[in-house]
């Protein structure tokens, strides 16, 4: 079951056939659905992903016809406006598979192999195919112009792609099937239910035209060069890559965009192709910068017995926003100081690997060891952490924090007072002065409930240490120092 949440409750957005058989339906309260179908696995419903996968399916269907579109009718079965079908124009395609029927069967087999449940219908008009796929008796059907009327007559008027108010008012006057509708006078229908009903009705029989707007391929930019013969000349190859980069930069300029991911691929004779990629922290079409990132990779690529062709693919493209040039800032925004750091970071990430370049993040917590965290530079911003009004000052925390508090021997005279001397790392420190205590309780919800009294203390050499006493055990620890 796929689940959606709104402010008030969780409900089922989509469910599989098994769950539906148990009585679950879209829109049902989740608790209710779980009671009916206790073993169902659940995941969050993601409308964007649903739309994306429908697009993917449509693209995949392009192998059967160049004209494919996602059903634009907003009367999805689930009533949430998400598309639930794909339309293909098969005119002239059927001979490639023998007949339309064979084509549909081939398509159905393929879909079943990837465990998709589908209903397919081919008909002379788009409206009829839509209707028969959803309301026809068979899950795969082919209807010809000759038997169109007979096939459509018994269908419910829902098959007309009309909105639910028109549908309901038709049913109220007793019109439930298309045949009954056909028997009523057109002028009176129009005056009551509007022209849209008649339009849909006419589209069903091909008496009104209907255009589908096919999806277009939006491919990643991919440019390449072939050589007359296989080459193992490094200079030739690097030169080619540079030329391709120039070319790519020009294309990107025309599209007002830049790359975030770039792949270079060598087709080699007698060996599989080899490729390398670079990742950028921000979209760029600066040839110099791109080449500085690509170059070490290109130089390290195995040429095998020779390279026949070089391909450069911009697999992640982003639009670069126009920026105002400043008179004083040196003109080119890509050259100013901020970008230098970014270029350096790009270089480091591409040389050392994404998991090796980390940045520190502050975590709002009183407990020092969990108050910061290191995350990969290019990692997506982790979930927004709330940050309460921080009551701590910079000087309240040491400049150097030990990864783990280190136990020390200490001599303390009074409660709530700093220790008189401590022995840390085989060295005695006699404490001259101290500030504190600052009391901190560790996260009880993690099962670690301990109370620490932190003191900022200075030894006889003037070194400031951050020490604490754990109240429950009366043990002392050093946790950091000011250096």
């Amino acid at each position: 079951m796929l689940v959606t949440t709104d402010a008030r409750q969780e409900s089922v957005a989509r469910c599989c056939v098994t769950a539906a058989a148990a009585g679950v339906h879209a829109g049902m309260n989740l608790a209710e659905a779980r009671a009916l179908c206790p073993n169902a696995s659940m995941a969050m419903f993601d409308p964007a992903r649903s739309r994306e996968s429908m697009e993917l399916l449509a693209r995949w269907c392009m192998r059967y016809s160049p004209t494919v579109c996602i059903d634009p009718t907003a009367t999805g079965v689930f009533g949430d406006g998400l598309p639930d079908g794909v339309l293909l124009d098969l005119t002239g395609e059927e001979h490639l598979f023998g007949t339309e029927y064979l084509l549909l069967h081939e398509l159905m087999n393929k879909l079943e192999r990837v465990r998709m449940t589908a209903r397919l219908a081919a008909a002379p008009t788009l409206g009829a195919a839509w209707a028969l796929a959803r309301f026809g008796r068979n899950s795969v059907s082919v209807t010809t112009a000759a038997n169109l009327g007979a096939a459509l007559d018994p269908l419910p008027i829902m098959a007309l792609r009309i909105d639910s108010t028109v549908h309901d008012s038709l049913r109220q006057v007793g019109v439930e099937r298309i045949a009954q509708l056909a028997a009523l006078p057109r002028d009176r229908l129009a005056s009551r239910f509007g022209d849209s009903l008649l339009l849909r009705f006419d589209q069903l029989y091909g008496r009104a035209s209907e255009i589908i707007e096919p999806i277009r391929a939006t491919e990643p930019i991919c440019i390449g060069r072939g050589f007359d013969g296989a080459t193992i000349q490094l200079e030739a190859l690097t030169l080619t890559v540079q030329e391709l980069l120039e070319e790519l930069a020009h294309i990107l300029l025309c599209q007002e965009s830049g790359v975030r991911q770039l792949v270079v691929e060598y087709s080699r004779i007698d060996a599989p192709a080899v490729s390398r990629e670079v990742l950028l922290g921000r979209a760029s079409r600066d040839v110099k910068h791109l080449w500085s990132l690509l170059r070490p990779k290109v130089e390290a690529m195995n040429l095998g017995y020779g390279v026949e062709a070089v391909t450069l693919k911009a697999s992640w493209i982003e639009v670069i926003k126009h920026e105002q040039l400043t008179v004083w800032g040196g003109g080119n925004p890509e050259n100013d100081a901020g970008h230098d750091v970014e270029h350096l970071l790009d270089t480091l990430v591409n040389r050392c690997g994404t998991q090796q370049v980390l940045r520190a993040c502050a975590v709002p917590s009183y407990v020092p060891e969990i108050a910061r965290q290191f995350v990969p530079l290019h990692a997506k911003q982790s979930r927004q952490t709330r940050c309460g009004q921080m009551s701590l000052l910079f000087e309240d925390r040491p400049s150097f924090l030990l990864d783990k508090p280190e136990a020390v021997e200490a001599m303390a005279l009074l409660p709530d007072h700093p220790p008189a001397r401590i022995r840390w790392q085989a060295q005695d420190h006699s404490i001259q002065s101290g500030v504190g205590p600052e009391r901190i309780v560790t996260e009880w919800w993690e099962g670690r409930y301990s109370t620490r009294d932190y003191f900022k203390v200075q030894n006889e050499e003037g070194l400031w240490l951050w020490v604490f006493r754990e109240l429950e055990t009366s043990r002392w620890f050093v946790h950091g120092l000011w250096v």
Partner: protein
Amino acid sequence: MPKTAYAELQVTSNFSFLRGASHPDELVTQAAALGCKAIAITDLNSFAGIVRGHVAAKEAGMRFIVGCHLQVREAMGILAPGAPHVPPPLSLLMYPTDRGAYGRLCRLLTFGKRRAAKGECDLTLQDVIDHHEGSLAVIVPPKRVPSSFVTTLSMLRDVFDADRLSIAATQLYEAGDEERLASLATLSKQTGIPLVAVNDVHYHIPDRKPLQDVLSCIRLRCTVTQAGFDLFAHAERHFKSPDEMARLFGEHPAAIRRTMEIAERAAFSLDELKYQYPAEVCPPGKNMMEHLIDRTLQGASQRYPNGIPSAVRTRLEHEFSLIGELNYPAYFLTVDDIVAYARSKGILCQGRGAAANSAVCYCLGITAVDPSRHDLLVERFISKERNEPPDIDIDFEHERREEVIQYVYQKYGRERAALTAEVITYRRRSAVREVGKALGLSLDSVDRLAKSGDWWDKGIIDAAKLRELGFDARDRTICLTVQLSTELLGFPRHLSQHVGGFIISQGPLCESVPIENAAMPDRTIVEWDKDDIDALGMLKIDVLALGMLTAIRKAIDLVNQWDQSKGGAGALQFHTIPPDDPAVYEMLCQADSIGVFQVESRAQMTMLPRLQPRSYYDLVIEVAIVRPGPIVGNMVHPYLRRRNYEEEPDYPNDEIKAVLGRTLGVPLFQEQAMKLAIVAAGFTAGEADGLRRAMAAWKRKGDLIYRYGQKIITGMRARGYTEEFALRCFEQIKGFSEYGFPESHAASFALLVYVSAWLKHHHPAAFAAALLNSQPMGFYQPAQLVRDAQEHGVTVRPVDVNASHWDCTLEEGKDGKTELRLGMRSVKHLRMTAAERIETTVHRRGPFQTIIQLWRHSGVPVSMLRSLAEADAFGSMGLSRQQALWAVGALRDAPLPMFEHLEDEENDLDLPRMAPEKDVAQDYASVGMSLKAHPISFVRSRLAQLGVLPAGYLRNATKLPRGNRVAVGGLVLVRQRPATASGVIFMTIEDETGVANLIIRPKIYDQYRRAARHSIGLVAWGKIERQGIVVHVLVDQIKDLRELVRIANDLKAMSRDFH
């Protein structure tokens, strides 16, 4: 005893909602235990917790300081420009020194709250300055003291002068404590404002730190891992002993001494709140008591036109002396005034409650329970010992109660009248839900934990049941959730409006208690709930809404109109309905009670034939006995046995007999439970009252009732009762805590039972029409009410534009009988204005022949005509629903001239034939019923093939004796799961011959869950159970009707589920 004298002055209780983590009484008790000299409760912009603190401090024998924590709109930063970060708002603690200062603070809070959204308070520094007179103030400095803080201080010093102002100093083990204290000490020296030590208490013991964190998370809507610096770093905000405080403030002993100075000077106590009854209920120059006596005798002469019976006269005199002695005449006169207003507007009302059943109230017309006819309930009319205002609840017609409320507001003004608050507290489900969320459990787990209550029985966690839900009882987060939500139980969450408890005073109310906005527009509530108001002895009148009163008034009006149209006097009145009509009782004994007040539920219908009510007092018992209290306390069966002479009532002694005699030795009423505690266990009246409160609050307060239980049992043993008898009594008393019903309320309700039953018996058509015109109310849907009327010989006519009004009306049938015409109000989506326009147009011009004519002359929107067409309301024009809809379809809401040419199309069109079952289904969809046929009748032959019997056959005891296995099928009317029935589901299904009552055990319910829970109709197999004329089917198998037979797809579920 500690050496140091110290008073804690900054205490946040859980009435600073989602901030404090201890109840006021916990705080006070802890402070007393540690030896504090005095304690203040300073909730954030609120006095909501002070009454509880005051009461607890009285018990603990310590000084209680009234105070509050004010946060004003101005941030510290506005006063101190250039401060780093976003500066926190300016915080002041205020303590009134006398009644006047307290009144000003209340006025200030009222002002801030009335200006802000519900639950918030919006104050400016200027407001505080305007109301500061007579109050001591402590300024709470921000955590980091900005250098410019001195300007803030000197500005405040100019207002309060250094004498009344102090600076709060804390030693809370925080970073920079020393510097902070040092800089505050310097500031204090510079400005001359003394320091005062506080500990910013948020909980009474350090163990509440986790709960406090969780509360903060609930408030901030985040989880504990996300909350970060919004939580406190440690658990130091608890009470510390005076000596410990002295040690922490070792270098500033003056700060400790200052606490005692403030405590001594902030001398205002809530005991000084002298409540004053409003005076205008009495004509100027007249004594209240005299006026009450005059009014009563005036009423008595109307009640008893042949002279006041001597018994009543003696009783009146007794009551007068009691009222005079306790000084309550103003209370009775206030109630009398409201009731008199309602009567003058024709709004039916009735009082209930102990005092309402007095002879005085009967004479004043507050109630219609005649004390001379029903000699009962004298003893607890006003309890002298408790010195607590009498208790009268008044029920008004539910549709017109708002008029009464607005009258009260208008008469006394918003300054002097407001609704009491209802403190909404955490219950098991809400506690688990919010704690679980704060601890970061997935929504899914929270849901599962909260929904199922099985694992949590009286605070003990059942690990096995948790495992069944898929939780590991040893898991830390689950453990914490369970443990913290147990602690959270009973915590106040927010203030809501009491259903109708009004508090009215002589002086401005907002000088006694802050008033805030309620969620409803035009409503204001005080910050205190009814217990608080009781504790301070203030007047409260419950102005409640009751649907049945609306129905009774409408029925009486219909009867009178009908009578007048026939030339009669039409003088039927609520008070003059003939009492003790045997035919009415006979009807009730037959469980023929659909529509009758209180006794129409299935449980009551089962009880009626067993109890056989033959008198008014039987009805009082009937009303009280079918309650969770008597059921859980196992009192029903003993009572019935004794009533049917199968068992002798036994009384240990005459004292007990005096208490329980009229209920045959079985305590059925709350009053009896209390009286029992006094007579048999030696409780004082005050203790008995505490017991009553414990019973009412058992669910919220937990084990309080058991403490009383111990006391009852030992008390009874000491007085020579057997252990067994004592235990039984306690079990029965405990049963009341589930839902005890006081006799005084049952008495008033029983009267409504009788009146509604009388109307049903003598005027079935008018009664049914009145019920339909008062919907929504009661237990049944219009369809069942109509059906019941038909079964009682009333002809019901369908909705028709040419005949119907908005309300249901009475028409004269061919044979002169009254018939019921359904009103247009039952048509779905139809608006009242449109219906009334049609009604007046038809009235003026006579019936219409075509829809277009009606449309032109009435000018109602087409959508309304469409709704009427859907309801098949054009029958008198000779149009079927289909034809009417087709005709309406051609109309458009446009300037009429555009459609001048539009002529009536001839109805020659052959629309597709509509199956009758669809027609019926559409009747149900639009009007909620069908007068044509029952949906099940269309599938009867198919059901008969399946061996399904018509429900009506079940009545035949000779053919279908007890234990026979039968199948019945029908539409589901009601699904119920009473809390007292350990999970058993009661279901009522209906077919064209009648209803069948099903009993479904939890196992069977789970097995057939889909059909049992969701189907609109079902077929059930099971064994017949009989008890007198009551028949049940004990179900062992269920099937969804739709799986067995074809019924119209359009038929939608109409059952009422689990209400």
